[in-house]
């Protein structure tokens, strides 16, 4: 049995790492053996942050530097990430789940089906309520769309129920979940969705 590989993409600063941080506690409580691969452009910033968080042993957080182009290493040439995932599986034979965080990118980024079994796209309320209407492949094609930072809606003049309805409409009924990763809200639903769709446990 190989570990499920789940991609987490989305624009810069939407809360991808915050979602992973919030999910790790939930996943541990539910006994799901997890490891993480982060992609940053030129540093190991996100990996270091996750290691400092202490929710996973440091060696279960691996960093792949994406160079100049974050979507290339998750789509056109995903082999560096595939190698990192293969290596994690070899090092931790019982692994259930590998989360792969893409470097922050634009709405057109997608994950190669060669790399992941399932991928989610994280946008945030502060990016503007017009984002779902812009319909990038990330918004439309991801297996799960997460709209994060719902707490900020009143501060940035966003009508959240309308944004959510538009997101559901452009996705033709494919799942959309709302979160406040900072406070862990909605994260249990994301984990439950993963369990049902990819972990089968």
């Amino acid at each position: 049995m190989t570990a499920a590989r789940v991609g987490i993409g989305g624009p810069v600063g939407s809360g991808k790492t915050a979602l992973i941080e919030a999910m790790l506690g939930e996943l541990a409580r539910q006994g799901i053996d997890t490891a993480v691969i982060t992609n940053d452009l030129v540093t190991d910033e996100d990996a270091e942050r996750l290691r400092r968080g202490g929710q996973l042993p440091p060696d279960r957080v691996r960093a792949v530097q994406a160079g100049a182009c974050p979507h290339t290493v998750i789509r056109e040439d995903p082999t560096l990430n595939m190698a990192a995932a293969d290596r994690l599986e070899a090092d931790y034979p019982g692994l259930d789940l590998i989360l792969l965080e893409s470097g922050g990118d634009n709405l057109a980024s997608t994950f190669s089906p060669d790399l992941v079994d399932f991928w989610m796209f994280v946008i945030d309320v502060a990016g503007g309520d017009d984002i779902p209407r812009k319909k990038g492949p990330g918004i439309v094609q991801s297996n799960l769309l997460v709209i994060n930072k719902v707490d900020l809606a009143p501060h940035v003049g966003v009508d959240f129920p309308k944004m959510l309805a538009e997101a559901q409409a452009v996705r033709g009924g494919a799942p959309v979940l709302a979160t406040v990763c900072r406070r862990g809200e909605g994260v249990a639903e994301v984990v439950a969705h993963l369990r049902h769709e990819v972990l089968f446990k």
Partner: protein
Amino acid sequence: MMPLVRAMQLADSGFPSGVFAFSWGLESALADGRVDRHSLPGWVLAELQGRWHGFDRLALAGGFRATGAALGDWFATIDRLMPVERLRGASVQAGEALFAAARALRIGLDPAAVAAERAGLGHFTVVHGHFLAVSGLDLAAALAVSALAMARGCFSAAVRLGAIGAIAMQRELAALAPRIAALAADLPAPGTLPAGFSPLSDIALMRPRDGRLFIN
């Protein structure tokens, strides 16, 4: 025609081999001002004549020719010839990406190569040679694929770093083509050990990675 078509596929920049993210020292060289738009073609040629011809060509030919225990030994030999740890690490990382591509493509590699990867010795040029042999290329084609890939890799890194335009890059590459062909036509005698690297990029590869755009 079939070997030609296969060689073109394997030489295509879209072929997923993991080397995209590497600039092979060019990034630091540009940052330090040791290379600029005008000296770039000369830098690439120096890399080809130095690092590629002196090292990669021989490492690749060994990986191409050897099988079984001899192949395993060749991975270990190349590993010992890479004293700079950053270069060694990058070479192994790029190699692991090619191993991952082979697994995903279900291209069966020699068990000795797989064992070398597990032992952390899966250097890119060696596994590339082996991979190209298994894919049905002859050694001359494999060397041409490798030399062209290195030249194109350097130039395309320069394009992404904003040091040269995408059109000018193709012009420079075309101008270098006869040199690339001549270097690649130099088939090494079996067992020839690699010499050294070109000094400029060695220095670049030893620099810390802080603030660098690419892995190297």
